């Protein structure tokens, strides 16, 4: 028998059957000597049982077909329509941009370069963020190589903001194609599996713009340009969650460029 005094926590853990056998024995011996504590414990145990039986009917209602897991799994294997629509829009922009470049000999960036950037970020999010097998080509462990690679292809130094203080780990990234040439795609995730994507590419027109918000179906995104590079942070999360992350990313990128 240990000499540890029996605490309030022990009494609750006894009710929840969360004690090891030794401690349970000690609590039982204590309850035998303290009828007031024993009465409280039995009231808690009775309450626990009452709660379980009061709520049981909610778990017994027939499960509606929308909650058929096999169906949800099958549907997720095919990217959702709204995500595809964003991807299709980006392909269309690509076609328009290419046609514009060919016929009019103009820089292949349609009006609203930031909006095009946001579209491309959403299209890439739709492809890579739900990927089970290879969401990133180079993992965070190889971030040195990843940054050298994308900096080389974008012809300027590219850095990946550190969002870990906000709870998002850097997963890694890859080089992706956009209507406006190569772009860097970085992915981040948190403990609950929410993924963020950041797309970075050179901007033909906008050198610097304020932060702007873009919604693409279920996705929200924030995009801006600075020193000739465009940045777009996208996620299947609310703008309230994403906005401070985008501000933080911008702050880091600007302080790094200035320093």
């Amino acid at each position, binding site marked *: 028998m240990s000499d540890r005094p029996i605490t309030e926590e022990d009494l609750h853990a006894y009710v929840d059957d969360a004690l090891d056998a030794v401690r349970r024995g000690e609590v039982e011996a204590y309850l035998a000597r303290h009828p007031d504590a024993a009465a409280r414990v039995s009231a808690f145990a009775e309450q626990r049982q009452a*709660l*379980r039986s009061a709520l049981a009917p909610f*778990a017994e*209602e027939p499960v509606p077909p929308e909650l058929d897991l096999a169906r*949800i*799994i099958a549907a997720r294997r095919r990217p959702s329509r709204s995500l595809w629509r964003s991807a299709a829009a980006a392909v269309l922009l690509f076609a328009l941009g290419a046609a514009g470049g060919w016929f009019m000999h103009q820089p292949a960036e349609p009006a609203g370069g930031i909006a095009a950037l946001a579209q491309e970020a959403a299209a890439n999010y739709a492809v890579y963020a739900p990927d089970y097998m290879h969401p990133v080509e180079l993992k965070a462990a190889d971030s040195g190589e990843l940054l050298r690679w994308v900096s080389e292809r974008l012809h300027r130094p590219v850095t990946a903001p550190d969002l870990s203080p906000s709870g998002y780990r850097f997963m890694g990234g890859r080089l992706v194609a956009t209507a406006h040439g190569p772009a860097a795609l970085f992915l981040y995730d948190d403990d*609950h599996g929410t*993924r963020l994507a950041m797309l970075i590419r050179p901007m033909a027109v906008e050198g610097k713009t304020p932060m702007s918000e873009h919604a693409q179906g279920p996705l929200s995104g924030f995009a801006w340009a600075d020193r000739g590079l465009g940045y777009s942070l996208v996620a299947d999360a609310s703008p309230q969650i994403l906005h401070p992350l985008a501000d933080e990313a911008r702050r880091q990128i600007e302080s790094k460029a200035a320093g």
Partner: protein
Amino acid sequence: MAASSAAASEASGRTTEDMMTLVDPLIPALRRYARTLLRDRANADDLVQDCLERVVTYWHQRRSAATARAWVFTILHNLAMSRLRQGARRGFSVPLEDVDEGALARPPDQEHGLRRQDVLRALDRLPDEQRSVLLLVSVEDLSYAETAAALDIPIGTVMSRLARAREKLLRDMEGNAAGAAPRPTLRRVK
């Protein structure tokens, strides 16, 4: 290439099997927790659907340290909290919508029904953060550590909220019983 796509489809077959084994049996409990937090059936089921979609999308990122049960409840709880915050901004609040008794295999008897209403009303009066702890521990069978992780709070906070929730529920239900009908109840002795 052929070999790698065969490996990929084998991996995805295994993933599907794992999810069906570990997640499918949780759905009734997920509906119960969502219903108790959001109160209305349509919203609760919509939330559970949202949760299942995330579970399927992010299944492979699950940390092996956490049990599937704890991980799925964490996702559900976070989604529920963000909906409740949105709801609070819009300023709506509804009473807990009860089950459609016709849909149940066995309807509750009258005595049990009255007692059940007492419990649900008392539960409804708990502060949100106490209700979550009490439900995850007492009804959904998460361990104290899993509950702490799901709610992103220290384990000491889980214990103190659990104790406060149980005391308050006890007081409320004693009050109900005393006001409604004389019924033998356990008196708490200080």
